[in-house]
C-alpha cells in the first residue's frame, strides 16, 4: 500500500543535510510551512540554499531560519517586507548571499526544473542589471534572456487537504509557489491542515497529483507568521 503519511513532523525533515537546496512554499505568510521550517531549525542543518519568494518577517519561520545562521544563500524575488529585519542586516554585513530573480522568472525556473526543461528564454529582465552576464538571444526581432531550470533536494510546502497518495489541494492565495515546488524537488515534504481518505478529493480538483509528493504530515492548527510576529514570538523561543 502506498502511504506517504508520516506521524512526526520532526521525522519528516530529518534527512535535510548540510548544504542542501531547499524550496519553501509561500508568498509572504500565505502558504508558508511554519512548522516544517521550525523543525528544520530544530534539526540545525547548515549552509542551506533556500529558494522562496520572500525572506520572512520578524523572528519566526524563514526569518528565524536565516537568523539561526543556517542559510548560506537566498534565491528569491523580494527579500524585504514590513517586518523583515533579519535578512537585511545579514545581507548588509555580507553574511548571506542573494540571488535576486524576477518573480515570474523564479516561478518559471521552478516549473522548468520540475518539468525536465534545463533552460528557456524569457523577455523578463532584458535590458536590466538582472540580465547582466546572461545569454541574450533574439527571436522574431525581440530580445530574450536565457534562464535555467532550478531543482532542489527538498521542498517544504503547506497545503489545505491531502490524502495518503499525496494528492493535495490548497487554500486561496496560499497556493502560490507550492504546486510547482512540489514538482521540482527530489523529496517533497508537505504539511497539511486536513488529512482525508483517498477519493475524498474529487479527481477533477486535485491541484498536486500524488506523484509529486513524498511525505505528508498533518498539522491541524498551523501557526501564522503575522500572529507570531504580533505576539513578539521568536523561534527558537
Amino acid at each position, binding site marked *: 500500500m502506498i502511504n506517504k503519511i508520516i506521524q512526526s513532523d520532526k521525522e519528516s525533515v530529518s534527512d535535510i543535510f548540510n548544504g542542501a537546496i531547499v524550496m519553501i512554499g509561500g508568498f509572504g505568510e500565505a502558504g508558508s510551512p511554519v512548522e516544517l521550517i521550525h523543525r528544520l531549525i530544530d534539526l540545525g542543518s547548515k549552509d542551506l540554499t533556500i529558494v522562496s519568494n520572500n525572506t520572512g518577517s520578524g523572528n519566526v519561520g524563514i526569518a528565524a531560519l536565516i537568523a539561526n545562521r543556517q542559510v548560506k544563500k537566498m534565491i528569491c524575488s*523580494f527579500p524585504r517586507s514590513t517586518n523583515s529585519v533579519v535578512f537585511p542586516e545579514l545581507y548588509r554585513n555580507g553574511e548571506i548571499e542573494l540571488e535576486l530573480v524576477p*518573480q515570474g522568472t523564479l516561478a518559471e525556473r521552478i516549473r522548468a526544473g520540475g518539468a525536465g526543461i534545463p533552460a528557456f528564454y524569457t523577455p523578463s529582465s532584458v535590458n536590466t542589471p538582472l540580465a547582466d552576464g546572461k545569454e541574450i538571444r533574439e527571436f522574431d526581432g525581440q530580445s530574450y534572456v536565457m534562464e535555467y531550470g532550478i531543482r532542489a533536494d527538498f521542498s517544504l510546502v503547506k497545503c489545505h487537504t491531502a490524502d495518503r497518495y499525496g494528492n493535495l489541494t490548497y487554500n486561496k492565495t496560499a497556493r*502560490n509557489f507550492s504546486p510547482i515546488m512540489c514538482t521540482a524537488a527530489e523529496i517533497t515534504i508537505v504539511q497539511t491542515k486536513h488529512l482525508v481518505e483517498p477519493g475524498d478529493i474529487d479527481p477533477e480538483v486535485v491541484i498536486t497529483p500524488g506523484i509529486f509528493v513524498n511525505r505528508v504530515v498533518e498539522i491541524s492548527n498551523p501557526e501564522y507568521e503575522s500572529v507570531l510576529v504580533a505576539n513578539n514570538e521568536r523561534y527558537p523561543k
Partner: protein
Amino acid sequence: MNGKLQIGWNRNEMAQKVAQDLPDGSYVNLGIGIPELVADHVPEGIEIIYHTENGLLGMGPVPEKGQEDIELINAGKKYITAITGASYFHHADSFTMIRGGHLDISVLGALQISKEGNLANWSTGKPGAIPAVGGAMDLVAGVKNVWVITQHVTKDDHFKLVNDCTFPLTGKGIVDRIYTNLAMINVTEKGLQVRELAPGISFDYLQKRTEPTLIQ
C-alpha cells in the same frame, strides 16, 4: 504626507484618473502603493477584472474589519477579497497570464521614468539598499500597456521624469502613460506629450519639474 501643501491632484484623484481610463472589460494588474487605490474608483457600469500575481484573478475590495483571511492576500501582502466568478491558480500559471500577454494593463509605481519610456522602480542601486524586484520586470515585459502613477518629483524635489534613468532599469521603452499629481502624460515616439494638466498647474510649472522637454 511630507508636510508640504498638496499641489495638483492628490493620490486618490490620480488613482481616479487612471480608473476613468480603464476600458470596460479590461484585465488589470495593480502594483503596490498608489496603484492599489485605483480599484476604489472604477466608474459604475463598467467591469474591470483585477489580477494579483500571487494567484488570483478577480480581486475584490478590502474585506470588512474582522473578515480578513490570512490566506487571501494581494501582491502587497494586504488582505483582500475575491469577487464572484474569481479563480485561484499557482505562480507559474499566474505569470503565464503576465508574460504571455494576456493582461491588458499594468499600473505601477516608479522611481524614475525616462523620455523613451524606460522605467526604474525596484532599486536605487545605493550601497546597503536591499534590492527587491518582485513581479515588476515580468509585468513590464509581458503586459500590453504599462501605466505609471507617481508623484511628479521626489520628496526632495528631484526629477522623476528624466532624460535617462540613473537607477537600475525595470524595463526599457515600456511605459505608455504617466499619471502624476501634476499632469497626465503620454510616452510617444517623439517624447513626453502632456494630455492634461492638473487644476492650477501651468505648462511652464510642469516643465520646470520635468527634465525632458515636454510636448504640449
